[in-house]
């Protein structure tokens, strides 16, 4: 049974408003596609308009004036064609690999020359005959990156004497500098986690993507569950959790301060129904919720401060409602008395009224949201907990674990090990969790090339630490149970058994 796919094309095409990931070499950038918006990426600027309507995964080159042009279709099987069109989108390493294969099979380069070693290569700084100005001129002439690289090779006196491998390395370096193909990709946890780790590790507490992978797996994040997330990783962890849940179930984001941070989550460009599963709850109200003193009426501290601030606008809103009706009539009829001034005033009034209305609606929404999140938490039956923040994880974990059902996993990420040691110790004392593991992972990349396979020179020193475990039913009397765990109280248990039998 050979099943064939005909998945709808619509969502695999780039459209205005989409969040996309730009890729050049190993560098990523997340942007939103907007009409005539100038995007700066890797020292180049361009507009994304020409990408609209194209499929995700399409490669573009940048033309003069910043417009994107489709990269010519690739001819697989034809190695020269591959060389011309395919390689620029490959990672640098695979590019050399390809280049080398091309060298081996291409009929046009059987005059290939290469040295055996570097005993005769002298660094006199004059091997490149092209000057910087020459190169600039070439660029201004609108020469393609590929052609510039060829010029550089042709004008290098030492290139022919370099070993085959050194030649590849040289070309690879020049490619990186002069060639600039851009691939537009659909965002994913993989791309965004790699992007954040590469560009702004500080914003995500140096959470490396392999640690992110562990979080999602150890947390058993999947569709249909109810997950509590507390993160200060720009919303990246939140987004990853939401991606794994695919819009099924609910996520409650606990946030510190005035509101949740979600830039990273927005970059995923989730469809709107994903947002319906997302709830938020301020950390500062956790104690009240646990104590059962959470006030869900509008008069809670937060909105009270708000309402006093816009009490003025609220009262003006009522009058503006009236004036709006009034002003709309004169606007059309009394054209004689300074219509422009009248219109402007009416417009102002209308806007003010609108704003106040919006604010009121927003506050009401906020209250509703708080109530719905509180309702979700109150059941104390969440299916998982993910913590990844710059705060000390210990109080966060102890506080939020109370909302988790028994036999559910939890994962705490911390950039440092010591706070997690404290969490571990505290959990051991307090009980309610088993299978505690404090881990970190090492990530090593490999260069895989014929005769030159080895680990990549530079590796990340640390991707943070994780404490994971599973919740179990809390004991009514902890002290007694701790006792029990140390000495077998066989007699009492036997009695229990008899009574139950």
């Amino acid at each position: 049974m050979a099943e064939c796919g005909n998945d709808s094309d619509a969502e695999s095409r780039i459209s205005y408003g989409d969040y996309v990931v730009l890729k050049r070499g190993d560098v990523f950038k997340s942007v939103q596609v907007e009409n005539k918006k100038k995007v700066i990426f890797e020292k180049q600027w361009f507009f994304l308009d020409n990408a609209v309507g194209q499929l995700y995964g399409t490669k573009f080159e940048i033309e003069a004036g910043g417009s994107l042009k489709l990269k010519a279709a690739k001819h697989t099987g034809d190695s020269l064609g591959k060389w011309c069109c395919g390689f620029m989108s490959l990672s640098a390493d695979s590019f050399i690999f390809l280049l080398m294969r091309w060298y081996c099979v291409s009929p046009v380069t059987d005059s290939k020359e290469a040295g055996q070693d570097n005993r005769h290569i002298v660094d006199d700084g004059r091997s490149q005959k092209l000057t910087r100005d020459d190169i600039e001129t070439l660029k201004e002439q609108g020469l393609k990156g590929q052609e510039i690289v060829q010029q550089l090779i042709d004008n290098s006196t030492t290139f022919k004497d370099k070993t085959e491998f050194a030649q590849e390395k040289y070309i690879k370096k020049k490619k990186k500098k002069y060639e600039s193909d851009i691939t537009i990709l659909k965002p994913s946890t993989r791309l965004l986690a790699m992007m954040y780790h590469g560009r702004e590790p500080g914003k995500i507490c140096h959470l490396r993507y392999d640690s992110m992978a562990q979080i999602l797996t150890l947390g058993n994040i999947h569709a249909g569950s109810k997950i509590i997330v507390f993160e200060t990783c720009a919303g990246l962890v939140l987004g990853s959790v939401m991606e794994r849940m695919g819009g099924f179930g609910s996520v409650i984001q606990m946030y510190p301060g005035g509101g949740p941070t979600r830039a990273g989550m927005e970059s995923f460009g989730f469809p709107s129904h994903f947002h319906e599963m997302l709830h938020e709850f301020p950390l500062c109200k956790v104690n009240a919720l646990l104590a059962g003193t959470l006030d869900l009426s509008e008069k809670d501290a937060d909105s009270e401060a708000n309402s006093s601030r816009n009490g003025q606008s609220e009262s003006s809103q009522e009058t503006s409602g009236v004036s709006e009706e009034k002003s709309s009539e004169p606007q059309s009829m009394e054209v004689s008395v300074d219509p422009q001034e009248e219109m402007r005033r009416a417009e102002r009034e209308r806007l003010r009224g609108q704003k106040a209305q919006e604010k009121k609606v927003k506050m009401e929404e906020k209250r509703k949201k708080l109530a719905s999140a509180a309702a979700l938490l109150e059941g104390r039956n969440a299916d998982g907990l993910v913590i990844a923040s710059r705060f000390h994880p210990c109080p966060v974990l102890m506080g939020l674990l109370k909302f988790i059902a028994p036999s559910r996993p939890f994962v705490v990420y911390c950039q440092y090990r010591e706070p997690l040691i404290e969490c571990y110790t505290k959990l051991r004392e307090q009980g309610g969790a088993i299978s505690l593991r404090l881990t970190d992972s090492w990530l090593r990349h490999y260069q895989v090339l014929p005769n030159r396979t080895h680990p990549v020179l530079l590796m990340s020193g640390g991707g943070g630490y994780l404490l994971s475990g599973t919740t179990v039913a809390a004991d009514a009397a902890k002290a007694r149970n701790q006792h029990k765990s140390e000495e077998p109280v066989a007699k009492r248990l036997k009695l229990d058994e008899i009574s139950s039998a």
Partner: protein
Amino acid sequence: MSFVEYSEIIQEGDVVIIFLGHESMMPIKVQSGAQTQTRYGVIRHSSDLIGQRFGSKVTCSKGGWVYVLHPTPELWTVNLPHRTQILYTTDIANITLMLELKPGSVVCESGTGSGSLSHSILRTIAPTGHLHTVEFHAQRAEKAMQEFKEHKVSHLVTVRNQDVCKDGFGITAIADAVFLDIPSPWEAITHAKSAMKRKGGRLCSFSPCIEQVQRTCEALLDHGFEEICTLEVLLRVHDVRTVSLPLPDFGPEEGSAGSSQMASDVGQEEVPNTGNTSVICRTATPPREMAGHTGYLTFATKPLD
């Protein structure tokens, strides 16, 4: 209970994980009237398990207790009956992330082996995705199918008993991701490519030896795959413990007490220890021995057709 959906109460037919303490666990299938022997004594399914909440403490006959846990792919991985070498959670986590798996993904896998990765994939792609898994060993394929049924995930998976290198995955142009854990993955790249969607997808191959990786990369390149990337992830589990470091005795000092001063500077608890002082500190030490290598993970992207 299902491997793709949590439930609160243990029911007849469920697979539960009995946690015996200190990394010691066992999976059991709950059947009314049945009994399970543990080192703490007998667990009677009807009275001790059925109707109980997952995560609760169960007292056994010999005066010990265990916890009954809801199964997860991660717990299953450390408890499943081995029919082959299996993939462990650290690699699985990275495979899942780098293959961009999520609810709705259509995934190809070969071989099925003991189903360690399969359970993880199923958990992640449910409720709308599908796994097409190929196992050339008839008995293993049969056993896997039976397990998927018991674990209530069989609606999400198709097991095919065929040779992936010769016959492929049995599907065309519908996969978002392909995973290969076979001795000669380079022979399956053509099939992997044709199984994948026209708009592209991700591929991962797991191989213990670098020569296998080399050949796989070459084949991937030949077939137009991009973003080829080989990596290795190692997990370090730290042992949290309290250690006591004795303070050396420099003999009496002129002026105030020197050594105790220093100890409190360090900010640790100081306790008198048979005449001498020592500092107690909590630390996490890496294990004396750890898994140094499982396999190389090679990832690649199949571009747009």
